[in-house]
């Protein structure tokens, strides 16, 4: 993997700011495309460097400017990693100018910039991305020189225009017409000026000369670019090679190299920062140790030793002793223990969190031949290797399976971990086929048959060999990250606003394909009619108080989890307080509870529905009573106010009404009553 150097070259000439009523101006559209592109780069933590060159600016700032040459062209930002400052610039600083400039001149400035600023840098490709509406006069004088230079330096050029280029002269060659389906947008070509027509002509000439085959394919409309860029791209990681030797017995080894090929990508972890200063360094943690007695006598860390449970016994076992006596992995290894029929390894027994692809070592044809013999022998015998695998001396050894994987382009072994005896849970489940109660009728079975037919996602092509799969999860970006980036991006610009709603296109991606949805309606109705399903009472709210409050325990001053025997989701605050908070003041207790309750109530309210409302109300009632007992009414009032604003945010007027009724029904003391009325008048 290596990185690219990219110049975003944007026309800010006065015509770019003109918009038809109800439409966005070409400049706004171009800025959107650039923003999307840069956001993707930022969240993918790409190492591509980006520069911005504007043309049509009032002023002039570029290395080539002299006299009346290269005027109104500004190098807005040199080649560097894109960041939020740049994104903000694009959003707020870059505005349509009052001048105009020749886009061919701008290209020359960009080429000059790329040449100068990439000296001594490693890059794979250099790009110029030009955003313009082609409204400015253009002089073809230098066209030949530009073309020759682009070819010579290998700099790639792409155009982004507000309209498609191929509609105006009825198609110029096959590539243009092949391309036209992409441009099936409603952009009226009628509004195109003579100047723009000339511009189009120059662009086409330029691109066609650069690359007769595909040059015109490098001209995009703003709209299609936006669609393509709407997904955040995944972070590319450099594959890390793990060199080792595959051994079969003590005398046969083959040099191999392994890579992780599938591993669940985990997000970056969150840093905890001080809510006021927003600084990480301001948050510090300390751990105190204390005896389990009534006074919680504090003791020094040095007075503690380490121990382990052995059933009912706790065995003191110092770190030093543990280190000395523990199992030691001798060295990294990939040792074959034996071979088993491949059907003896069932997929549901895969363990661990990754898949390795194992190849012969690079540049060692002897190893490659030996390895190939192993792969093909395994495949032909339909057997797999059972392997002891240790990443290195410090790591625990694994048992795993290595099976052959033969493609046209390459062949390899695929390694996945298998369970140890200790990892198995041998559960027994009641028989389904030996219980007459649960045997479906013929009618029921045929209804399921038609359901399966109608919801089939894979079609065999006519040739009977290839398949069309309507729904491939492995092509879908993880919605968690898409959502995370969307939220981060939003918060970067609007730190004080709530999170935006999930983008509809993201949700759509997770749904059943439309064709299937329509097709399965009738069979679903049939299944529904034939299989009586009866809700036996409400699903028990399977939440204990521990569960309810666990979100907030993290990082709090007391990691001890509250004991809660109650399974019904009802609870007494005091019992929680006692179990939960042992060393902080009553004030803190109450404060905690209000935090926890707020979150809990939030959760209840997410599930709009009266039974959740009632749970919420009960929480509030209990809190109020306890607050009164402890004479900490202010806490409760603060809490209520916070709640009110939350409720308003979420448009839950009906819930608030119930709260009010609930509060009225119980007499409580004057102070609160007054306060509450005040609140409800707000």
């Amino acid at each position: 993997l290596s990185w690219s150097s990219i110049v975003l070259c944007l026309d800010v000439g006065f015509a770019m700011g003109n918009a038809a009523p109800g439409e966005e101006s070409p400049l706004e559209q171009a800025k959107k495309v650039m923003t999307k592109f840069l956001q993707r780069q930022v969240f993918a933590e790409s190492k591509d460097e980006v520069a911005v060159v504007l043309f049509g600016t009032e002023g002039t700032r570029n290395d080539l400017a002299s006299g009346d040459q290269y005027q109104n062209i500004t190098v807005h930002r040199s080649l560097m990693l894109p960041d939020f400052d740049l994104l903000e610039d694009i959003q707020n600083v870059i505005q349509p100018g009052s001048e105009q400039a020749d886009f061919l001149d701008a290209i020359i400035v960009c080429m000059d910039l790329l040449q100068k600023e990439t000296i001594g840098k490693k890059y794979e490709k250099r790009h110029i991305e030009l955003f313009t509406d082609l409204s400015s006069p253009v002089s073809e004088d230098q066209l030949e020189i530009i073309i020759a230079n682009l070819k010579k330096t290998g700099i790639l050029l792409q155009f982004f225009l507000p309209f498609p280029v191929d509609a105006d002269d009825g198609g110029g060659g096959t590539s243009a017409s092949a391309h036209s389906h992409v441009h099936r947008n409603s952009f009226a070509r009628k509004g195109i000026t003579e100047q723009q027509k000339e511009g189009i002509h120059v662009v086409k000439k330029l691109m066609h000369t650069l690359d007769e085959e595909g040059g015109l394919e490098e001209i995009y409309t703003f709209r299609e670019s936006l669609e393509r860029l709407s997904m955040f791209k995944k972070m590319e990681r450099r594959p890390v090679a793990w060199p080792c030797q595959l051994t079969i017995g003590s005398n046969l080894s083959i040099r191999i190299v392994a890579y992780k090929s599938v591993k669940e990508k985990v997000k970056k972890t969150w840093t905890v920062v001080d809510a006021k200063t927003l600084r990480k360094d301001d948050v510090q943690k300390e751990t105190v140790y204390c005896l389990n007695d009534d006074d919680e006598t504090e003791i020094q860390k040095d007075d503690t030793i380490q121990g382990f449970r052995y059933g009912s016994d706790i065995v003191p076992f110092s770190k030093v002793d543990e280190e000395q006596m523990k199992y030691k992995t001798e060295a990294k290894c990939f040792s074959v223990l034996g071979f088993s029929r491949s059907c003896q390894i069932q997929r549901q027994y895969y363990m661990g969190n990754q898949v390795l692809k194992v190849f012969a070592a690079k540049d060692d044809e002897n190893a490659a031949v030996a390895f190939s013999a192993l792969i093909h022998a395994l495949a032909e015998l339909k057997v797999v290797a059972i392997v002891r695998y240790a990443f290195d001396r410090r790591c625990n050894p694994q048992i795993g399976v290595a099976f052959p994987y033969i493609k046209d382009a390459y062949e390899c072994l695929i390694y996945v971990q298998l369970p140890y005896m200790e990892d198995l849970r041998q559960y027994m489940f009641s028989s389904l086929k030996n219980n007459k109660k649960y045997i479906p009728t013929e009618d029921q079975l045929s209804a399921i048959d038609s359901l399966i037919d109608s919801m089939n996602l894979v079609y065999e092509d006519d040739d009977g060999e290839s398949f069309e799969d309507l729904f491939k999860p492995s092509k879908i970006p993880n919605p968690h990250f898409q959502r995370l980036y969307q939220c981060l991006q939003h918060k970067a610009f609007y730190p004080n606003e709530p999170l935006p709603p999930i983008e509809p296109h993201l949700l759509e991606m997770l749904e059943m394909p439309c064709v299937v949805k329509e097709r399965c309606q009738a069979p679903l109705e049939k299944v529904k009619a034939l299989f009586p399903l009866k809700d036996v009472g409400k699903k028990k709210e399977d939440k204990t108080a521990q569960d309810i409050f666990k979100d907030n325990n993290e990082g709090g001053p007391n990691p001890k989890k509250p004991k809660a025997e109650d399974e019904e989701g009802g609870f007494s605050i005091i019992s929680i307080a006692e179990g939960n908070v042992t060393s902080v003041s009553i004030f803190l207790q109450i404060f905690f509870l209000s935090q926890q309750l707020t979150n809990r109530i939030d959760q209840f309210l997410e599930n709009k529905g009266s039974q959740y409302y009632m749970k919420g109300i009960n929480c509030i009632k209990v809190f109020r009573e306890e607050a009164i007992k402890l004479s900490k009414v202010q806490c409760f009032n603060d809490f209520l106010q916070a709640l009110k604003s939350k409720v308003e945010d979420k448009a839950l007027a009906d819930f608030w009404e119930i709260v009010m009724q609930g509060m009225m029904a119980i007499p409580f003391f004057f102070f609160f009553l007054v306060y509450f009325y005040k609140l409800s008048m707000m």
Partner: protein
Amino acid sequence: MSDWVSYYRSEGAEEEDDEQEEGAEAVVEHKFAGRDSLIFLVDASKAMFESYENEEVFTPFDMTMQCIRNVYTSKIISSDRDLLSVVFYGTEKNKNSADFKRVYVLQELDNPGAKRVLELDKYRGDQGQILFRDTFGHSADYSLGEALWACSNLFSDVRVRMSHKRIMLFTNEDNPHANDSAKAKLARTRAGDLRDTGIILDLMHLKKPGGFDISLFYRDIINIAEDEDLGIQPHESGKLEHLMKKVRAKETKKRALVRLNLYLSKDLSLTVGVYSLLQKAYKPYPVKLYRETNEPIKTKTRMFNGKTGSLLLPSDTKRAQMYGNRQIVLEKEETEELKRFDLPGLVLIGFKPLSVLKQHHYIRPSQFVYPEEALVKGSTTLFNALLMKCLEREVLALCRYTPRRNTPPRFVALVPQEEELDEQKVQIAPPGFHLIFLPYADDKRKVDFTEKVPANREQVDKMKEIIQKLRFKYRTDSFENPVLQQHFRNLEALALDMMEPEQAEDLTMPKAEEMSRRLGNLVEEFKQLVYPPDYDPDRRAVKRKQGDGDGQTEKKPKTEISRDELRSHVQKGTLDSKTHFNMSKKTE
């Protein structure tokens, strides 16, 4: 490189994110937990100490004690909070709270521990049998009803909350009170009482001459758990392995990770339980002890502002990430909220042939799905119909899976599994769907593959011979985790003041000698075929041996040597020159 290391170093110790997820599931699992409790009720009358027709090494009693010990040690590793107890009946001596004759409570219901394991070990083997006779004696004059009563007392004496109570009865007598209808009646009454109080009574019947006939007596005594009904009783056990299998299938109470709806459409859903049949067993976390007294201590972590020193409450902090040179700050709640997509559930997307499931698209251990009739009646029939049809048509159900609120969805393949019993009628595969997690685009990585150099027919065939010599039958329980075993043996040694821990055999190490013996000359022959004589895989590559595909092999003049000839060459040690010659030809 750092990437690799950071993961591996943390294995078994602390894995940041993954660990948290697993931790969260563990919480779900133990949420309602009281403790599981299990009494081993063991027939100690004479017949249990006699080998069956001398064909088994172990007496029925010996097998029983080994099983029990095994459960003890595995509980210590996997769930040391569960309560276990051992009760003998048919002994001469007695010890129990109600002073029933012929009932001896060896160990009350308590956590398994080192001393208790050691005590069990005393009664193993021939020496153990003698010790048992001398200590407890045997008597046929027992009452099974009283033994059951004593068990019931043990349960009620326990003060902690128990979620699951079970008695496993080990005997090889199929009609204990054939001549005493009063005792038989009492046993039936007590068994009925147990049933009424929700105590499961399993029969672990052992082989006896003439066969064990359940219908004579035990059919009315045993009480099978509703969720473990196979509609058929397993056979009597004549072998330790088989008894172990029966016991293991029931020793842990199964608990659903989560119960949720499986939506066929928005308004059509059944309920299922999701189970995990695989759960990585980790070395437990250490506990902190006070040096003076070895008593466990509490740790409390406080957050405070480094500048002002004031205590920080969770609400005084926010969460941040850095991107594009900017720190982006969210509320803690918002970091949870952004993970919220669906309510918990499995949403059906459609069906696909099983064959499209890629073997190497794996990201985390599978789970298991079984219907939950208690929430939506009719779920089991619909589930069964889906299962039957998916099996028949060899299709999988693709679903979107949200196990909990604030958990982003993942796509899973529900792969049907047919129920399977072994010859002794013990379930080895339960009916239901395996839930296989599928990767997203982000989870796949590009790799830098090595150009292939195809081996020729002869080379492949030689490797096949090697493979054939080293075949064995893989079973999921073939390998113990050497790290865990060593850890617990160390603890055991320390707990029991043993001089040195028992050394566990490391089953993950290749059996080098055995392999060499089986392979004989094959390895040398293979090396001759693929490696040049001066090639040492421990060092850098020297030069190319050969690497043409099968097509070209035909043309080679050298392959005129038959395999037998080749073998004799190898044996005489004359092959070197020939292969060498051939090789130099190829490399031109």
